[in-house]
């Protein structure tokens, strides 16, 4: 609002400046131009005399110049004295009123119209200092805030490159932002200056793994093991050790590692879906029997879907070599479907987030899935995932609603209906027949 006040003020100021000659009483008649010529020639004559006095001009030269200027002066004098038609009338004529009106109308019209076309009305300045404070409602402000923090930290580190704490702070942020190489460098610097620490070792290992395109390298494996020696219950390190075992094809060991990881993890840990699918995969390859259904509520169901998906998807160990390890198992867990499943960066990010951020990210993903199903409801796996997600998030009402709609959508498809009602039952939801399709 204040912006428009200032704009109005500026416009008004310019208009007043431009029209003031039409109202000013100071404007007299402009003098005749011949009178100007007279003055110029007279000044020239004075300079000439001054030159002669100083002796910089010979009398002979001065004489001829004087004669010439004199001739021009006479001519100009005659023109100036002769007629007054060169003098301009002072009263405000009709035409000048028109000109004044044109100014009053055109200046605001042109500038406001042009500004509406070219300008970005009301977009505030976003200087570095403003972007440093997180905006109240997330979005640009928040991202800018992180960028800002990093820029600030980087500046400090340029000045004091031996500040280990500084490196330790930026390293996980780099990792989260996907600036893998920077993250590796920062972790290494921090370890060099502060000595190793399990969290940093594990972080460096993860960065190396990301950098190697998902392959847990020798060095990374070494780092994870060193972290686990210092802190055996550090689960992220265990995750990557298990992943390495899967990648190496040591399936029996892998299955054991995954199982141990799942046991120790909270049911909602971000790596759980991956761990479960990898476990199932490893057990299958190792020739162990598939896990029984319903060992844990929710998890059992996931394992079951996983088992179904497996027939059509390649094993994670092979897939992981080509892409990001963290992403591939998840893609399988959702039956390799396209669409808004979390990408590798999102999963990687989730593992580094604090609880609040993680929930926000997951909610974002769920709502995207819901949106997609709104427009393209004919996707049984999608519905299964949505129902389960709502249930995990504790939104039973929404889960119920989704279940009802899914049953409505697949009213003709018995297999799908069966699957959906099974899931509903396992989650403790009520399968109400004849839910309305959207």
């Amino acid at each position, binding site marked *: 609002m204040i912006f428009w006040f200032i704009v109005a003020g500026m416009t008004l100021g310019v208009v007043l400046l431009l029209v003031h*000659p039409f109202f000013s009483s100071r404007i007299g008649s*402009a003098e005749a131009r011949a009178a*100007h010529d007279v003055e110029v020639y007279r000044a020239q004559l004075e300079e000439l005399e001054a030159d002669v006095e100083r002796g910089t001009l010979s009398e002979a*030269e001065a004489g001829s110049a004087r004669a010439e200027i004199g001739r021009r002066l006479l001519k100009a004098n005659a023109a100036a004295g002769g007629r007054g038609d060169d003098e301009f009338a002072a009263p405000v004529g009709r035409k000048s009123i028109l000109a004044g009106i044109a100014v009053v109308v055109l200046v605001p019209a042109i500038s406001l119209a*042009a500004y509406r076309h070219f300008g970005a009305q009301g977009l505030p300045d976003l200087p570095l200092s403003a972007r440093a404070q997180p905006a109240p409602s997330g979005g640009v402000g928040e991202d800018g805030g992180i960028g800002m923090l990093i820029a600030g930290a980087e500046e400090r580190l340029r000045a004091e490159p031996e500040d280990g704490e500084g490196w330790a702070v930026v390293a996980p942020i780099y990792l989260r932002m996907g600036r893998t190489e920077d993250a590796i460098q920062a972790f290494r610097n921090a370890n060099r200056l502060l000595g190793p620490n399990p969290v940093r070792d594990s972080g460096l290992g993860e960065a190396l793994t990301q950098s190697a395109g998902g392959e847990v390298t020798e060095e990374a494996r070494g780092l994870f093991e060193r972290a686990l020696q210092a802190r055996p219950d550090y689960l992220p390190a265990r995750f990557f050790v298990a992943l390495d075992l899967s990648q190496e094809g040591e399936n029996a060991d892998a299955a054991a590692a995954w199982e141990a990881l799942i046991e120790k993890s909270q049911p909602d840990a971000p790596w759980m879906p991956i761990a479960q699918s990898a476990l199932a995969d490893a057990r299958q390859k190792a020739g162990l029997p598939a896990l029984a259904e319903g060992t844990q509520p929710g998890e059992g169901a996931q394992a079951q879907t996983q088992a179904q998906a497996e027939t059509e998807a390649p094993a994670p160990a092979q897939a992981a070599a080509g892409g990001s390890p963290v992403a591939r198992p998840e893609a399988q867990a959702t039956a390799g479907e396209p669409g808004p499943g979390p990408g590798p960066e999102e999963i990687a990010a989730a593992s580094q987030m604090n609880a609040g951020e993680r929930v926000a990210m997951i909610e974002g993903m769920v709502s995207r899935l819901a949106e997609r199903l709104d427009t393209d409801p004919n996707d049984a796996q999608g519905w299964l995932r949505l129902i389960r997600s709502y249930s995990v998030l504790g939104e039973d009402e929404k889960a119920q609603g989704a279940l009802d709609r899914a049953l409505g959508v697949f009213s003709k498809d018995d297999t799908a209906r069966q699957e959906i009602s099974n899931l509903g039952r396992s989650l403790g939801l009520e399968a109400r027949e004849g839910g309305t399709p959207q």
Partner: protein
Amino acid sequence: MIVELGHYALILALAASLIQSVVPALGARRGDARMMEVGQASSLGVFLLLGFAFSALTVAYVNSDFSVLNVYQNSHSAKPMLFKISGVWGNHEGSMLLWVLILALFGALVASFGRDLPPTLRANVLSVQAWILTAFLAFILFTSNPFTRLFPAPFEGEDLNPILQDVGLAIHPPLLYLGYVGFSIAFSFAVAALMDGKIDAAWARWVRPWTLAAWIFLTLGISMGSYWAYYELGWGGWWFWDPVENASFMPWLSGTALLHSAVVMEKRSALKVWTILLAILTFSLSLLGTFLVRSGVLTSVHAFATDPSRGIFILMILCVFIGGSLALFAFRASTLESGGLFQPISREGALVLNNLFLTTATATVLVGTLYPLLLEMLTGEKISVGEPFFNLTFAPLMVPLLLAVPFGPLLAWKRGDIAGATQRLYWAIGAALLTVIIALALTQGTEVLASLGLGLGIWLLIGSLVDLVERANFRKVGLSTGFARLKGLPRSAFGTALAHFGLGVTVVGIVCVSAFQTEVVTTMAPGDVRGAGGYEIRFDGMSERDGPNYTEEVGNFTVMENGTTLGTMESARRLYTARQMPTTEAGIRTHWFSQLYLSLGDSTANGGATVVRIWYKPFVTLIWIGTIFMAIGGVVSLADRRLRVGAPAARKSRLAGAAGARG
């Protein structure tokens, strides 16, 4: 908000310029003092608005506001503050904003200092200024808007180009623009006179100081650009006849001609039509320079063809202004009164000669610059016009001009006495001949051209001072009276002498470097010693060093003369890590006016040794020192009270009522 306000101020300035384009000129036609007065108010207002817009953009740069596309593309939060600020005009959009700001500044200066001008002339001039301003403001808004926003704002800016972070580059463009745009005043005065069909007596008195001011800035700008290329590029050259350099050199040449013809017009009311034409041509060449540099046509004719919006827009501006003003000239020139008569041998005659050679030289540079572009556009054949072309065409035209320079100030107006002038130049002639003979003897007759060139330089140096000495008349009146008389001389006489003297200094520098520089390209291993220009240079080996944003391999050298160590020098190959951009840092050591210049090449295959280029450049700094003399000469001349407009100070009572108009 300030960014958007700056944007709005830019648009408001366009609206005001549109009004200013029409109303004052209409007022001048109809004899309406109020409508004419709008020009003054508007000029000041537009200048303030553009000043605000420019400040707003500067604030965005200083605060690293990357929500402004232009800032995001051309800045970085880690840039040092000085380069954040110079970054404002270090790019296309910002530099165009600076261009119009300077244009508005000149308009505002005319409005505030032009109160003594005949009102119709002033009104017309301000309207013509507004036409140029409107055209370029529209150009900025439609094709190169510096206030385009970016949402959401990115974390970090894109540009941290190390090469552009240079103090020389921070000052160079504003100086050049002050020169380019300053010529717009002469242009506006010329067009205003043509519109009126009358040249007022005050015309030349006004045009000359403005042209002089523009010329001073352009001289310094070109000189600084030349020195920058010399030390930064590491090629050892100080002028490359590059189209970008020519783009600024052409307005300088014709501006110099304009400066001289304006003298004739002021003193003798002669050469009126020619001066008007020169004023138009000089600014046209400035516009052409802007077009060449800004349209991208130089980088690639094809780039111009694929993204033509900017180029076409400037080309249209170019055609309208040059074509329009020349057409106006063709229609109206005959209505202008012709002025005083003069003999071919006279001060006027000498100045005509000056104009003849300068404009012809401008034309050769123009041909050399545009011909390759036109040929490529028309036939697709690609040629390169470089130094050999200009040496063959430009240099021969300069020699007679330089020979004639000392005569000019010694000839009287109207009818001169060439024999008398020659007589007064005996000393200079003698010194020049002596120089030639000594130079020939020292070089055993191998350097005939260079010896003659040196003689020419000495001729200019001494010849340009003769006028002052003669007018002080030391021989007759003795030292003390002589100095008193010298003090009493008009400043413009000193200005002329200084500027011509500076020209001589530059000529001596150019001749010395071109003829007597030694260049050694050699492979050196640590411990090797090479001689250049009487010095021995020992290569002490390479060392590695890290800068803030680059790593460099530094070649360390020791400079010795007859075995005594004078000091060390270093030259480096730098690699700016972020952009993987290698550069060569030349090592320069100045001894009096001469310089040793070292530049590193690649290391040889087996390592250890490296290719080194060693130049000894005798008197090279004189080239730039001379230009400083010229600029000082210009400033002294500008300070001459006689150049200030003959303000109608005392008025006849008949006009007393009109005094209010001038405030």
